[in-house]
């Protein structure tokens, strides 16, 4: 069956460390993989997109990797801050369905001071 799994429901990280979140998928062949941030009571906010032919993408303190062989994406936040605390969602997009993306259930990240 098709699945998108994100690592543990919650992740607790000390401020200043690098937070690493995982997104694994099975029986999908995505063209793109996206990462979103969601704060309580708010809609998801788009952060980064990585294409299947890209290995790595960076934006400020964020880094995303995409390994289509392992069927995995890693999302890193370096020099983490309490303000980075939120739920992070990965989402897959496909060539066969131009307008549909499928979301994982998210990882709740807490950065403690």
């Amino acid at each position, binding site marked *: 069956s098709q699945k998108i799994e994100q690592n543990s429901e919650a992740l607790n990280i000390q401020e200043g460390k690098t937070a690493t979140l995982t997104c694994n998928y099975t029986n999908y062949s995505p*063209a*793109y993989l*996206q990462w979103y941030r969601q704060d309580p*009571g*708010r*809609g*998801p*906010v*788009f952060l980064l*997109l990585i294409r299947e032919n890209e290995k790595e993408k960076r934006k400020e303190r964020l880094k995303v990797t995409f390994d289509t062989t392992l069927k995995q994406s890693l999302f890193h936040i370096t020099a983490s801050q309490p303000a980075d605390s939120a*739920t992070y*969602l990965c989402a897959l*997009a*496909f060539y066969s*369905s*131009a*307008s*549909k*993306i*499928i*979301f994982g*259930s*998210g990882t709740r990240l807490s950065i403690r001071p």
Partner: protein
Amino acid sequence: DTAVSQTPKYLVTQMGNDKSIKCEQNLGHDTMYWYKQDSKKFLKIMFSYNNKELIINETVPNRFSPKSPDKAHLNLHINSLELGDSAVYFCASSQVPREGYTFGSGTRLTVV
């Protein structure tokens, strides 16, 4: 200026009622979506419209009917509400398919 705005933010209603949620985007995007987020936080697509034309209609009960009067608006009407319809409904838009979506802040629907 709010890019994607939904109203109302909260909706509490009794079983069997009919209700509507409105969505407007001022980004000039061609494609709009409705997603449902359940209590386990899964976001599932319901509908997608491209320039007023329905292009995605997932397995959603017929009681749910989207309407897009123009490409900046996508409304969701729900008939005969059931307890299981309780969830947060998000509207979103995008200019380029597969690329980043802009979401509204959600409508929390509670059916009692």
